[in-house]
């Protein structure tokens, strides 16, 4: 990696900032654990922001991972299964497994239902941690978790900063991987992502598990930092902390969580030295940011320099490849006599209103069909049934002889049933290049990696693409 490329990574700036803060605190001979805490919460916020900023899901209770992982590492150490470092790995695995189970259940819903369900899970975890005194220590928590691998606070601090920076680098790689781009596509326009052939549910679940991993790791680090664990972090008031920090820093900026964590923790530290009732000062600051600088601290700074754009995608277009292989459709070999798409007795009714009755249609290869009818004739309903966004009341749809009546939108798109929309449908926050690239990526099975660089993927040959519906 060249120097210039290194400087471009947010992880580099995070490393620089955290190192500078550490040196300042050492020079002032102030306890460096405050900076350890900032590093931990930066990762916490960055993990949450993978859902909020990139995927467009707002978990009110990401603390369920943070808190449970911190208990997991504490149990692991006290039970003597292994040392403190092994406990981190255990906590991460447990947190990822929890994310898999919880995510699989609650990602059936998005929007406010999703947010409130995450909150419910974190509250259940809180109640268990708070009440199950014999195991979790209840209100007092568990103290005296040995941190044997680290001789003092400073070595632990260095460990935290190094691993947090490494995690931020990983997160950044993921964000710019083909998978990361799909997250943003899903955030911007779920329907379009689906009709391009992406399984939106699995994409979201993937993001949820990654959040579980990184938030879990930060939670386990907190246990080692405090050498103890408390139920407080699971409580809904603190469940909001990571979200507040991330929004304060700027959710549409890779470094937002870092600025947010610094501002939040330093202000908390300074203000609570002045008054116990420090929210009296801090809450108005947060409210001012929400009202005046929706893009948070980074957005504010950007605005001062006359730039205002998100920093989640690259604004450049990679170099044009020297040779572009001409597009060759696989459909060219289709048998012209065999119908490609068929509907049999396709019906759709909404209550008593019948919008489609017994539609039988054969679409042959190499033939252009138009469906014409007056307003309200049911053209769009018919297209929606073909593309899968509406389930027919009865009848069946065959594609190349296979029944696809119940296949979801993305599965049909992968078979080659494309769809363009009646009104403009794009990913509004992605660049023009990314809008096109995402569509191409959907066609290529091998390009869904977590770590490859989406921006520089080699030019692609396009897959099936055989039949497209369009309603105007």
């Amino acid at each position, binding site marked *: 990696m060249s120097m210039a490329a290194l400087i471009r990574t947010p992880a580099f700036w995070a490393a620089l900032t955290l190192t500078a803060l550490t040196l300042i605190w050492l020079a002032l001979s102030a306890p460096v654990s405050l900076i350890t805490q900032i590093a931990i919460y930066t990762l916490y916020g960055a993990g949450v922001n993978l859902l909020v900023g990139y995927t467009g899901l*707002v978990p009110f209770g990401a603390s369920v991972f943070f808190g449970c992982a911190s208990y997991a590492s504490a149990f692991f150490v006290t039970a003597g299964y292994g040392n403190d470092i092994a406990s981190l790995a255990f906590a991460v695995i447990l947190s990822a497994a929890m994310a898999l189970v919880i995510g699989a259940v609650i990602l059936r819903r*998005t*929007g406010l*239902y999703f947010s409130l369900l995450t909150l*419910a899970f974190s509250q259940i975890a809180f109640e268990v941690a708070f009440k199950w005194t014999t195991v979790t220590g209840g209100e007092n928590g568990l103290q005296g978790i040995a941190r044997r691998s680290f001789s003092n606070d400073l070595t632990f601090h260095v460990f935290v900063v190094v691993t947090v920076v490494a995690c931020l680098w990983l997160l950044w790689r993921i964000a710019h991987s083909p998978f990361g781009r799909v997250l943003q596509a899903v955030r911007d326009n779920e329907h379009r992502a689906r009709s391009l052939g992406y399984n939106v549910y699995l994409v979201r679940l993937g993001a949820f598990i990654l959040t579980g991993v990184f938030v879990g790791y930060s939670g386990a680090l907190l246990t080692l930092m405090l050498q103890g664990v408390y139920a407080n972090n699971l409580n809904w008031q603190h469940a909001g902390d990571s979200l507040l920090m991330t929004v304060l820093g700027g959710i549409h900026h890779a470094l937002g969580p870092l600025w947010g964590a610094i501002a939040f923790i330093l202000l908390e530290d300074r203000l609570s030295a002045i008054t116990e*009732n*420090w929210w009296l000062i801090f*809450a108005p600051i947060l*409210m001012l940011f*929400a009202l005046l600088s929706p893009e948070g601290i980074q957005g504010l700074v950007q605005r001062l320099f006359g730039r205002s754009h998100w920093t989640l995608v690259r604004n450049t277009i990679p170099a044009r490849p020297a040779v572009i292989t001409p597009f060759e459709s696989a459909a060219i070999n289709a048998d012209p006599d065999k119908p490609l798409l068929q509907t049999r007795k396709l019906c759709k009714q909404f209550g008593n209103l019948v919008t489609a009755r017994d539609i039988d249609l054969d679409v042959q290869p190499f033939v252009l069909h138009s469906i014409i009818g007056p307003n309200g004739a049911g053209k769009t309903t018919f297209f929606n049934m073909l593309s899968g966004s509406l389930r027919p009341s009865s009848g069946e749809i065959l594609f190349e002889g296979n029944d696809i009546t119940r296949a979801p939108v993305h599965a049909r798109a992968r078979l080659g049933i494309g769809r363009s929309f009646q009104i403009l449908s794009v990913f509004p926050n992605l660049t023009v290049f990314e809008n096109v690239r995402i569509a191409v990526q959907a066609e290529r099975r091998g390009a869904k990696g977590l770590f490859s660089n989406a921006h520089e993927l080699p030019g692609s040959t396009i897959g099936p693409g055989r039949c497209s519906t369009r309603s105007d």
Partner: protein
Amino acid sequence: MLDMILSQAVNGLVLGFLYVLIAIGLSIIFGMLGIVNFAHGAFFAIGAYLAFALNRQFGWGAALLAPILTGLIGVVVEMVLIRWLYGKEPLLGLILTFALALLVEAILRLLFGGAPVPFAAPKFLAGFAEYGPILITKYRMFVLAVTVFVLVAFWAFLAFTPYGRIIRAGSRDPEMVGLLGINLPIVFSGVFGIGCLLAGLGGMLAAPLWTVTPSMAAGAIMPAFVIVTIGGLGSYAGAIVAGLLVGITTAMTIQFQPEWSGAAMYILMAAILLVRPRGLFGEKWERFE
């Protein structure tokens, strides 16, 4: 045993109806304004503290003004703060109201201190009433009667008056309501005010039953969220059924499984949403998805 269960069920009803008062306000504010009002619990606390302060200064008759004052505070808050966030990123409304909740708590702490303030029911409502096997304090009966009355009245308001129709229509499509010539900014202020008034009423009624502390908001906002979700976002009947369900479940677990009393409603919520993903009475509303 049976009379204990019955008495506790009635206590659960009282609790449930109090929750419903708070949840209905939360629900109409979210439905109409699209704002997840994390500060709703704060208005509940404001109602309780206003009732406490008015009662101390002027007697309990003046305390009855507490809900109306809370509603007025709500209108001011809407005009000064909330108004600027309509149509913006929903997360900002969340952050703003979350911070507002913490600010209100801090202000109450500043004015009244962190310790619980004593607040007793008026004398004529003191003591117990006995109905067959059911033993209940007179004050709880009073709360039950008032909440049921208010909920019926508010339902009638929503169902039969032109203003109620505007609110119901606006919850589905505020833009269209605006296009029909209704002055939306005023309606929004009004709806936020009504929501806060109901929360304030809940706070005033709950004050003699719960401990009045600056952090009492937490005890109101979480059940309200749970109820709105269980009942189905935007559903009046759903909120009532869910409220009673949560109230009775909580009361029963307090009596028989106290360790689980806190977690019970969340488990109920998770279980119900597993079976019915949009809650008991929830329909598909674009803005909640």
